[in-house]
Structures are given as structure tokens and as C-alpha cells.
């Protein structure tokens, strides 16, 4: 019974906090991008436009829900909720501090990789179910991209597992708190693994420069071409949640999670997550996007071999030193 209350409490909290953070992240991104482009960004709704995301949600709720008559109705309606669920449920295993963690699984890393990879299915369902050529091309690209980048992602996440000897996220952070953050020591393994991990996560979350599945300048809006109103918003939200969760996972696996002096653990974790998140947006608003074949070549010709080498090197390091 105790577990039920604990799980329900943290589960509800995580979903609630994640939703609010996503809304705030939207505001932050719009302001950030606007400043980069010498604009003002949202200013009208609330102080400094802080309430703009909520106004957007309310507006999108009032939009007509259009289902094209040629679309596969079941798949078309199924895809957006599935995408949101897949993105949110990854957050259940993230250790926000030493004791704020909804489910401290023994196979935490495996769980988040598995559920994170599920995120591509709703995208492809949407692309196929829309029965639209732009959406189909977007869905195909998303599928190819996500399954390709899954391999370097799995390999990069293997490095902390080897170095710390555990798949439990809290144990990985604990190890870093007692030894060193993995990007600090051994940095020659930690830093490349961290970079590969973040790149692959960006690709999984369809962020620029890897956002070819929805490449709006090529495919109109890719998979979301036919979606209106709140269903479109769910896809949008899933993408943001995915990026946020990816930042949190990156912070936990490589940047020492809640570990840090002076401040409470939760503060450090949030700070690191938001720093990574901000960095993702900095990239997004600076870079152009790759072409799909260049993206695949980058994955298979550079990231996968580099990942294999890193895994082998980490194993040597552990046997030798540890």
C-alpha cells in the first residue's frame, strides 16, 4: 500500500511538473529564439508573455478537429495520445534527487532506452495513418532516422553502465557523486560518450539539425500535416517532453545528476537539465538541417563505429583500473 501511495504521488507529480515545465520551456524557447533574432517574442499574455503557452493550449483546444476522409481514422486518432504517453512515461525513472524518483528500477537505463525508442511508433503511425504523401515521407524518414540513431544511443548509454557497473539510474548518479562525474574522469571516455548520447537523443527527439521528419520547408509539416488543434499540440508537446527528458537523462548519466555543492540535489538536477535543454535550443536556432542521407551516413559511418570503440575502451579501463 505504501508503494502505491508513493508511486501515485510521485507519478502524478512528475506528470504535472513535466507539463508545466514543458509549457514554461516553450515560453523560454520563444523568448530565447526571439532574442537571438533581435525580436521581442511573446509580450502580451501575462508578464513578459509568460502565460502565452497556456493561451496557446486554450486556443488549440477550441480548434476544429479535422480528420481527412481518406485517413485511417483509428490510427490517425491513436497516434497523438500514444506519442504523449511514450514521451512522458520515460520520466518515471529519472532520479531528480536522492529520494525524488518515481520508480528506481534495477534496469533503469534499459527501460528508458526501450520506452524512448517507442516514441517513433506514434510518429510512423501518424505518417501512415494520415494517408498523405508528405506525412508518409516524413514518417518514413522518422522511422529510418530513429532506428538508426537507436544504435549509437544504446552504445553510448552503455559506457556509464560499464563504468559504474549498474543499470540503476540512482546507482549511476551515486557512483558519480562518490567518484567523479563521468565527463570529468575518465573524460576521454565520458565526453565522447556524452556527445554521442546527446546527438542521438536529439535525433530521436527530431530536433534541429536532425528534424528532417517534419522538415516544414520540405514536407510542409511532415507527419503533422493533417493534424489540427489539440492533436497537433500533443505531438508538439511530446517532442518537447522528449527533449526535456533527454536533457535530464543526459544530466543524470554523465553530468552527475543531483550531485553538487552548496545547493540541494533537486536544484542541481534541475539546473543541469535546463542548461542542457537551453543548449539544445541554442543549437536549434543556429544550425540548418541535414539531408536524410547525410544524417544516416553520420550515424552509421561515424557514431556507430565510435560507439563500439568507446564501449570496448570503457571495458578495458574498468578491468585495468577498477
Amino acid at each position, binding site marked *: 500500500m505504501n508503494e502505491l501511495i508513493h508511486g501515485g504521488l510521485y507519478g502524478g507529480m512528475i506528470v504535472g511538473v513535466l507539463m508545466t515545465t514543458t509549457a514554461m520551456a516553450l515560453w523560454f524557447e520563444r523568448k530565447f529564439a526571439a532574442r537571438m533574432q533581435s525580436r521581442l517574442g511573446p509580450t502580451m499574455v501575462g508578464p513578459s508573455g509568460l502565460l502565452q503557452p497556456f493561451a496557446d493550449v486554450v486556443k488549440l483546444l477550441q480548434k476544429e478537429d479535422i480528420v481527412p476522409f481518406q485517413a485511417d481514422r483509428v490510427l490517425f*486518432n491513436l497516434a497523438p495520445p500514444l506519442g504523449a504517453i511514450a514521451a512522458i512515461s520515460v520520466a518515471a525513472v529519472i532520479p531528480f534527487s536522492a529520494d525524488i524518483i518515481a520508480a528506481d528500477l534495477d534496469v533503469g537505463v534499459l527501460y528508458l532506452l526501450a520506452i524512448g525508442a517507442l516514441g517513433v511508433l506514434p510518429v510512423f503511425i501518424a505518417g501512415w495513418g494520415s494517408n498523405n504523401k508528405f506525412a508518409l515521407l516524413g514518417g518514413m524518414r522518422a522511422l529510418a532516422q530513429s532506428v538508426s540513431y537507436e544504435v549509437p544511443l544504446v552504445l553510448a548509454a552503455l559506457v556509464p553502465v560499464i563504468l559504474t557497473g549498474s543499470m540503476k539510474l540512482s546507482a549511476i548518479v551515486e557512483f558519480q557523486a562518490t567518484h567523479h562525474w563521468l565527463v570529468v574522469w575518465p573524460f576521454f571516455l565520458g565526453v565522447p560518450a556524452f556527445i554521442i548520447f546527446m546527438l542521438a537523443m536529439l535525433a530521436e527527439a527530431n530536433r534541429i539539425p536532425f528534424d528532417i521528419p517534419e522538415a516544414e520547408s520540405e514536407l510542409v509539416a511532415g507527419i503533422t500535416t493533417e493534424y489540427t488543434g489539440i492533436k497537433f499540440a500533443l505531438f508538439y508537446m511530446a517532442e518537447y517532453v522528449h527533449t526535456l527528458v533527454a536533457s535530464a537523462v543526459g544530466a543524470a548519466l554523465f553530468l552527475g545528476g543531483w550531485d553538487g555543492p552548496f545547493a540541494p540535489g533537486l536544484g542541481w538536477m534541475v539546473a543541469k537539465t535546463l542548461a542542457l535543454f537551453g543548449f539544445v535550443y541554442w543549437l536549434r536556432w543556429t544550425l540548418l538541417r541535414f539531408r536524410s542521407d547525410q544524417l544516416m551516413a553520420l550515424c552509421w559511418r561515424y557514431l556507430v563505429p565510435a560507439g563500439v570503440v568507446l564501449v570496448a575502451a570503457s571495458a578495458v579501463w574498468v578491468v585495468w583500473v577498477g
Partner: protein
Amino acid sequence: METPLTPYLPIALVLLIAGGMAVIIPFFTGLLGPKSVNPVKSSTFEGGNIVVGSTRQRFAVKFYVVALLFIVFDVEAVFLYPWAVNFKALGWFGYATMLVFASTLVVALIYIWKKGALSWES
């Protein structure tokens, strides 16, 4: 009442909460949003033209190659996880065993690279 599945309980709850939210929100839009269906509005978008041909057709083979590559490499990579956890106990023997296993992966990568399966340009 501690069973091996107890740690997964919160995940089930998160799934439930997230799922409930994701299902209820689209339901609200049905209540709040306007409804006016007409054939032009609910036709498939293709730059404002009448759609010619079907989307339900065979697609370029390169995507299937990617899917095959994924299955080969991802499954192999996931096999490395249990090994990684018990790695210290296994020592150099475990390392050598895994090296043999991983080298098949590397050989496969080199093979498909040479075969040209990684050149999507053409």
C-alpha cells in the same frame, strides 16, 4: 508485500495518468471546437491539388535495409547490457568473450559498408 514487480507499480501509475490525460484532452476539443465538415476541408492536403495516385504503395528499398541493420545492431548492443553489469566479476575472461561477440558486429559493419548499404546518396 514485496514482489519483483513492486518497483514497476509507479510506472504503471505514470502510464495511467499520462494515458488518461492524453485521452481526455482530445475529448475536450470535441466539446469546445466547432464542427463543420465539408468535402474540401476534409480532403487530403497536397499543396492544394487533387491527389493523384495512392500513398499505399511500395517504398524505396533503402528503408528496409535500415530496418534490417537496426535489428542486427540494436539487438546485439542490448545483449551487451547484462554483460556490462556483471562485467567486474567476469574480468578479462568476460572481456575476451565479449570481444569475440562484438567483433562479429564490427565485421558485419565493415561488410555492409563495403557492400554499399551505407551510401544513401544513390
